[in-house]
C-alpha cells in the first residue's frame, strides 16, 4: 500500500512524519479533524531519518538499533549482566588463583556453576563486551536518526502554522483583538524580545523562540557516552593499559617489563600494632597486624641505550615517593601501589677482610656481591681471582660442587690467590660468607684439601656493617591507565550535555491573527508553569488579561 504522504499545504513529508514539516498539521488523524487532543511534539513531529516504506536488510539492522525501545532493553540486559558480575569476586581481582578450583572450593556448587557460566569474568566476557558495543551502536544510530531531522526541522521552521497545530499545543490562547492584525503583530515583537525571544514575523503570523540549544543537550550527552565507551573498549590496545604485580627487593633498581621505567625500592618499612593498640579479641588470638607498610620508591626513566642488551642503560631519576597503602606513586599516569611484602633476609653482598692467619696482619677488605661479582680483586699484596661461584652450595652424586638453586641460600666462592708466600700459580681458597655454613660444609678442611694457601690466609668478616642484607621484598602493583583522560573527557562532555538540557528550556510561541481573532500556541520542553507565566505576562503587556491557569490546555503534568 502506498501511503499518500503529501500534506494539504502541498508539502511532501517523508514516511513516518507525525506533524507536517511545513505547516505543522497533524498527518495521521485526518478523520477526526477536530480532535482536541494534545499534539505529540517529540522531535517536532518529524520522521526518524531512516524510516522507509520498503526496508531492506541494511535498513532493518539500522532500524533495530534506531529504536529507543531496543536501547532501553539493551541497557536493562547490560545492567542485569553487570549485577551478576558482582555476585562473587571476579577472577581479575586475584593475582594468582586457579579459577577452576577456586570457585568450587570457596562457594560450592553454585560457585562452580558461576564459573562454568563464565560469570567469574563477566566484564571481560564476549557477551558483555558485545552488549556494550550494541549500546554504542544504538547510541550512534538513535542520535543520528533523530538529531539530523530535528536540526533540519528547527532550522527552517515555517512561521505561519496550521490552526490545529496552535490550538492543540499545551499552552493556548484565543481571543479577539481590536486593531489591525499587522499592527498588533508588530507591537508584540518588542515585549517578546525583552523576554529574550528571537522573533520572526510573516504577514499576520509570528514565531518567537528562545534557548533552542538546550534541545541538543541529549545528543551532547550521547557524544560524551560514545567517547567514554570507546575509551573503555579500547583499553586493551598495547601501551594503553597495564596492571601487573612485581617484586622489588630493597636497595635494587629493578626494571619494569614493557616500560622504560626502573624502580628502586630504597627502603621498605613495616610497623606492627603493639599489644596495647589491639583489641582484646585480637590479643587473645595472638594476631600480628601490620600498622604501616611503606616503600621508599625512586622512579627512573631510561633515557639512552634502553634496548641494547650489550650496554648499561642510562637512567634519569624522574620521581620519588613513599608508597603506602592507598597512597600510590603516580608519575604521569604511571602508578605503583603497595600490594604486599615479604621478609626475605637475603644476602646481597659482604665485605670480607683478608687476614694473615699467622701474624694476624690485616691486608684490607673488598666487596663481594652475590649477583654479578667482579672476578678480580687486589687486596694488599695479594691478588684474588674468582674462579667459580655457587649460590646454593651442595655436592652432586659424584661429590662435585654444584649449586642447588638460584637463590643465595648457601653462597660459596672459589678464589685463586697469588702473592707473597704462595706458590707461583697461586693457591685455591673457598669462602662461605655465612659463619655457620663455614662449619657445616667444613671450609677449613676443604681449603686444606684444595691446597696452595697453606693455611696462611683467611677471609674474615670483621663487623656486621660489612654484611649487606636485603631485608624485604616489596610487592607492588604497577598500573598504567592512559585511557583515563579520555574517560574523564567523555564524562565532562556528558556533564555539559546534562547542564544544557537541565537548566535551559526550548520555548516557542506561535501567533496568528485571523479575522480579528488572535490564536496563540506555546511550547516548551519543560517547566510549563514558567511558560504559562511568561505567556500571561506577555499578553498582559499587550493589554489582554488572562488567568495563567486558563492558558492550560490540559495535559496538566507540570
Amino acid at each position, binding site marked *: 500500500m502506498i501511503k499518500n504522504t503529501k500534506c494539504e499545504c502541498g508539502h511532501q513529508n517523508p514516511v513516518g512524519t507525525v506533524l507536517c514539516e511545513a505547516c505543522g498539521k497533524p498527518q495521521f488523524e485526518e478523520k477526526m479533524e477536530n480532535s482536541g487532543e494534545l499534539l505529540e511534539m517529540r522531535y517536532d513531529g518529524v520522521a526518524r531519518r531512516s524510516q522507509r516504506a520498503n526496508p531492506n536488510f541494511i535498513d532493518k539492522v539500522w532500524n533495530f538499533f534506531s529504536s529507543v525501545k531496543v536501547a532501553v532493553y539493551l541497557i536493562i540486559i547490560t545492567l542485569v549482566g553487570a549485577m551478576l558480575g558482582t555476585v562473587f569476586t571476579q577472577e581479575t581481582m586475584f593475582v594468582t588463583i586457579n579459577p577452576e578450583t577456586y570457585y568450587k572450593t570457596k562457594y560450592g556448587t553454585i560457585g562452580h556453576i558461576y564459573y562454568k557460566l563464565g560469570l567469574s569474568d563477566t566484564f*571481560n566476557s*564476549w557477551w558483555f563486551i558485545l552488549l556494550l558495543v550494541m549500546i554504542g551502536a544504538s547510541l550512534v544510530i538513535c542520535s543520528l536518526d533523530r538529531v539530523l531531522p530535528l536540526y533540519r526541522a528547527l532550522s527552517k521552521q515555517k512561521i505561519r502554522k496550521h490552526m490545529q497545530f496552535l490550538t492543540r499545543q499545551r499552552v493556548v490562547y484565543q481571543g479577539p483583538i481590536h486593531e489591525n492584525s499587522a499592527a498588533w503583530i508588530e507591537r508584540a515583537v518588542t515585549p517578546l524580545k525583552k523576554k529574550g525571544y528571537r522573533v520572526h514575523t510573516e504577514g499576520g503570523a509570528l514565531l518567537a523562540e528562545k534557548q533552542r540549544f538546550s534541545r541538543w543537550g541529549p545528543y551532547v550527552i550521547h557524544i560524551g557516552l560514545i567517547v567514554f565507551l570507546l575509551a573503555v573498549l579500547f583499553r*586493551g590496545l598495547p601501551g594503553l593499559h597495564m596492571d601487573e604485580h612485581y617484586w622489588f627487593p630493597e636497595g635494587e633498581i629493578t626494571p619494569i617489563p614493557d616500560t622504560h621505567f626502573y624502580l628502586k625500592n630504597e627502603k621498605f618499612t613495616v610497623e606492627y600494632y603493639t599489644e596495647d593498640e589491639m583489641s582484646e579479641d585480637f590479643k587473645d588470638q595472638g594476631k600480628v597486624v601490620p600498622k604501616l607498610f611503606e616503600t621508599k620508591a625512586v622512579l627512573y626513566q631510561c633515557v639512552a641505550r634502553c634496548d641494547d*642488551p650489550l650496554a648499561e642503560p642510562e637512567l634519569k631519576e624522574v620521581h620519588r615517593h613513599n608508597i603506602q597503602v592507598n597512597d600510590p606513586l603516580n608519575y604521569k599516569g604511571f602508578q605503583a601501589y603497595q600490594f604486599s611484602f615479604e621478609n626475605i633476609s637475603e644476602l646481597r653482598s659482604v665485605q670480607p677482610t683478608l687476614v694473615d692467619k699467622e701474624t694476624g696482619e690485616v691486608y684490607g677488605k673488598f666487596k663481594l656481591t652475590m649477583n*654479578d661479582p667482579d672476578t678480580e680483586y687486589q687486596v694488599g699484596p695479594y691478588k684474588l681471582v674468582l674462579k667459580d661461584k655457587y649460590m646454593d652450595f651442595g655436592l652432586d652424586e659424584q661429590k662435585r660442587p*654444584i*649449586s642447588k638453586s*638460584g637463590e643465595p641460600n648457601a653462597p660459596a666462592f672459589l678464589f685463586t690467590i697469588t702473592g707473597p708466600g704462595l706458590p707461583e700459580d697461586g693457591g685455591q681458597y673457598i669462602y662461605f660468607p655465612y659463619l655457620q655454613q663455614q662449619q657445616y660444609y667444613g671450609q677449613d678442611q676443604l681449603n686444606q684439601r684444595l691446597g696452595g694457601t697453606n693455611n696462611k690466609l683467611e677471609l674474615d668478616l670483621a663487623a656486621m656493617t660489612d654484611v649487606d642484607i636485603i631485608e624485604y621484598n616489596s610487592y607492588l602493583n604497577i598500573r598504567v591507565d592512559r585511557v583515563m583522560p579520555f574517560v574523564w573527557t567523555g564524562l565532562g562532555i556528558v556533564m555539559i550535555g546534562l547542564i544544557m538540557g537541565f537548566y535551559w528550556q526550548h520555548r516557542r510561541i506561535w501567533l496568528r491573527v485571523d479575522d480579528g481573532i488572535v490564536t496563540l500556541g506555546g511550547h516548551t520542553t519543560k517547566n510549563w508553569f514558567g511558560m504559562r507565566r511568561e505567556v500571561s505576562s506577555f499578553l498582559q503587556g499587550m493589554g489582554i488579561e488572562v488567568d495563567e491557569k486558563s492558558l492550560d490546555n490540559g495535559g496538566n503534568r507540570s
Partner: protein
Amino acid sequence: MGRARRPVQIIILTLIVILGGYAIGTAVFGGEKARPENGDSPPAFNLRGLDGQVHNLEKYEGKALVINFWATWCTYCVNEMPALQTQWEKWQDQDVVILGINTGEDDLTVKNFVKQTGVDFPILFDKKKEIVGKYGVVPMPTTFFVNKNGKITSIVQGELDLKTLDKQIDRLVKSR
C-alpha cells in the same frame, strides 16, 4: 533524497562491526599477556649472548628454532645439555638453531658451565628473568620448538632425551 543516506549507513555499520569486532576479539582472545601456546608466534626478545652479540628473533628469521630455558642449578637442564649439543651438531646445517636461554645467572657461572660441558650453540643471558616470564616458563627446563614460519609447534616441559629431541627437530624441519 534517500540515496545519499545509504553510504552513510554502510560506513557507520561497517565501523561499528570493525571496532566492535576488535573489542570483542581482544576480550575473547585475552590480549597480549597470555602465555604462548602452540601455533602462536614466540614472544620477542633482545638478549646478550655469551659470544657478546645481540640475539633476537629477527636474527634467526627463516630458521627453525629450538629455544631451551635452563640454569646450572637445574639438574634436568644439565642432564639434557649433551643431547642438545649432539642435535646441534647434527642439524645446524639444515637451518636449525638451538638457543639456550640461561635464566638469571651471571657470566662467571655460565662461562664455567659451558667450558665444562663443551656446548657451543648460542647461549643467551636473561639476567632479569624478563623473557622467562614472557614465555610463561614455570618448570625448568622448558623447550619451545619454533618452525621456519615463526610459529611454535610444540612446547616440552622437562628433560629431553636424544631420541625425542631428534624426532621433534625432524618434525620441525619438515613442518611448513
